[in-house]
């Protein structure tokens, strides 16, 4: 057994794929130019990297006709979308509708607008299955709604929303639909046109790309668009100033490319792996509960509740396996997961739950080992 723990926290971050690193290296070494230097070759090479990556990313979401703005990550993209859209709509439409279990960067952006810009927030509940209550959404939107923000895939429980149905409701009232797709991008097929998504945020490091890069995609014919969050040299068509990082962007593009090419096969492999893992756990610990729908869920995620076993004790007992009790951002805070509370778990149940995330580099034997270690640890905790 190797000394480093088995990494099963793929929703927190993923290892960089070697092929992505290969795509990045030329821009770290010889082609180091500033893409904004229009007058010499070093600058052109760097700019070309951005163009290629823009196409790779857009292709992956079926968004070729839209505008893609590179950012420092999904957090910045979500800030730009939520704050920028609201400012663009205000004051004629001053309400923001969002699901109860959005990522903290969407929540905090909306709360910031409520505190500082008079935004009215309308929260739409999610069901026990981790899917948005569509009739509640219908009731929440109106001609006062500026934007609706719903994450396509939840970061803790991996549940997938019916974006097409959500979009129809949003469009009926003339509002704009933003979706945080940090956990969906590359993992499930996304066609922004068919799904009716107007703005989409994505991240590199969740799909075996580098940290420090993400993007905000916007439909090309949007009537109201967010303005920039960062002002300055006017890069990214004036929508996001700051020297772009060609190496990071090239890495994001390549990561998108690989994810698209291998998705079908990977989905199948991960689904089998999950079934096998789950079967073992359920057999040994039959009172284990699944948090959120298993059917509408990305293949590399599990979120399980082990009644009577505290997650913090499980984590410290599971030395050889890296899993988590919620989002990485909230790790160590001792707070109860707002996601698990949103789907109706009691405080106790939420504090007895673990997120298990696996992906491209997870091997069958690692999952087998992890299942055995987990079962053992849960039993020990209950003794």
């Amino acid at each position, binding site marked *: 057994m190797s000394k480093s*723990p088995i*990494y099963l*926290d793929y929703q*927190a*971050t993923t*290892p*960089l794929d070697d092929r992505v*690193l290969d795509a990045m*290296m030329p821009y*770290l*070494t010889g082609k*180091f130019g*500033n893409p*904004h*230097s*229009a*007058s*010499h*070759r*070093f*600058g052109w090479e760097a700019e070309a990297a951005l163009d290629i990556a823009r196409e790779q990313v857009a292709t992956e979401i079926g968004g070729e006709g839209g505008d893609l703005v590179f950012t*420092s*990550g*999904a*957090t*910045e993209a979500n*800030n730009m979308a939520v704050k920028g859209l609201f400012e663009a709509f205000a004051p004629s439409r001053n309400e923001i509708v969002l699901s109860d279990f959005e*990522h*903290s*960067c*969407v929540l*905090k*952006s909306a709360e910031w607008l409520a505190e500082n810009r008079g935004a009215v927030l309308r929260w739409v509940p999610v069901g026990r299955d981790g899917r948005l209550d569509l009739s509640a959404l219908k009731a929440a939107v109106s001609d006062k709604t500026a934007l609706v923000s719903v994450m396509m895939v939840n970061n803790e429980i991996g549940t997938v929303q019916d974006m097409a149905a959500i979009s129809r409701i949003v469009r009926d009232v003339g509002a704009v639909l933003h979706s945080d797709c940090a956990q969906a991008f590359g993992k499930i097929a996304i066609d922004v046109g068919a799904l009716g998504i107007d703005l989409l945020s994505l*991240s590199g*490091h969740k799909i075996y790309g*580098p*940290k*420090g*890069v993400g993007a905000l995609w916007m439909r090309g014919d949007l009537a109201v668009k967010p303005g920039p*969050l960062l*002002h*300055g*040299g*006017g*890069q990214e068509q004036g929508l996001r*100033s*700051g*020297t*772009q*990082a060609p190496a*990071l962007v090239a890495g994001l593009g390549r990561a998108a490319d690989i994810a698209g090419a291998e998705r079908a096969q990977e989905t199948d492999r991960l689904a089998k792996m999950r079934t096998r893992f789950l079967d073992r756990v359920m057999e040994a610990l039959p009172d284990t509960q699944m948090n959120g729908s298993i059917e509408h869920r990305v293949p590399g995620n599990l979120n399980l509740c082990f009644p009577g076993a505290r997650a913090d004790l499980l*984590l410290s007992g599971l030395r050889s396996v*890296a*899993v988590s009790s919620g*989002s*990485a*951002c*909230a*790790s*160590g805070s001792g707070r109860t997961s707002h996601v698990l509370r949103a789907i109706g778990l009691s405080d106790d149940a939420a504090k007895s739950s673990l997120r298990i995330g696996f992906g491209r580099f997870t091997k069958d034997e690692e999952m087998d080992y992890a299942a055995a270690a987990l079962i053992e640890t849960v039993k020990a905790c209950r003794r």
Partner: protein
Amino acid sequence: MQNRQRHYLDYNATAPIRVAVIERMSEVMQTVGNPSSVHSSGRAARGVVEAARANIAALVGARARDVVFTSGGTEANNAALRATGAKRLIVSAVEHDCTLAAAKVSGLDVKQLPVDSQGIADMAVLAELLADGGDGVLVSVMLANNETGVIEPVAEAAAIVKEAGARLHVDAAQACGKIDVDFGHLGADYLSLSGHKFGGPQGTGALVLAPTVPLAPLITGGGQELGRRSGTENVAGLAGLGVAADCALAGLADAPQLARMRDQLEAGVQNLWDGVQVLSQSAERLPNTSCLLLPGLKGETQVMHMDLNGVEVSSGSACSSGKVKQSHVLTAMGVADDLAGNSMRVSLGYGSQERDVDAFLTAYASLAERARDRVQS
């Protein structure tokens, strides 16, 4: 044809990444871990980020805990101007585009601090603007200008600002790695820096804070950077930034040599034709930067000519090259409108050699000749 050697003299736009930085980044990119995760992979990533924080703190003479990592200099400047609770702004007329743009969109009352013909901010005007007290005022003066390399009297500004009870932000993006930067000694409240200007990767930077000053997050979310900047940290990038800071500190010893090469370049140019002006030549400047004014030829034409001859320079800052836009820096210095578009910026760095200067002078000779013919005909 294209394998002819290229001479990169545009370090102020972006500097080549140091080899040690690439090595460290490749190493870190092969590990996994979100610094916010509590498991050992996460803690290892946290360790990488915190080590880089210590390196940056050492580079600028600050406490590690006062270093807030950002996606670059632009974000740091935006945060300083728009997220520190300022009620009024005073910005020097030669600040970087992103500082000026951030001031413009802040919705606050903005006063401009004029500069003299050398590009040095007028401290008497600063004192005047703050005469009625500086409560709630943020003053932004860059440490070194990106186009002329002029070093601004920041310590003097800090004394005036402090006296008035205002706060001072210093954009040190072009200064870090080129001259000694000591945050404590400067007496500023905020300092911005950018990784790719001193051999680190693009997409990294920091805002450094004085121990007691406020910073509300510009980017909200998971609460990283002690709640001061959300978003998963660019771990490998920051590791690279840390190594670059180390290299930059060590590289300061080479400054006299760079200055010698730069002076040699300027002497060579003026020797070709005395119609060439070196801007801010008598001011205190960065050792690596030279801003040349060549009457009769547009900056874009000059840059194109140099590029065809294997020498990479820029006209004005990279952010405005490619756009037909006059340099606001030169205009602020009082350069006449018909001349302000005729500048070329040459910036050297740690990879620069005598042969780059030679190649520059060879290529510049025919340019100067063309300009002279045009002006004198």
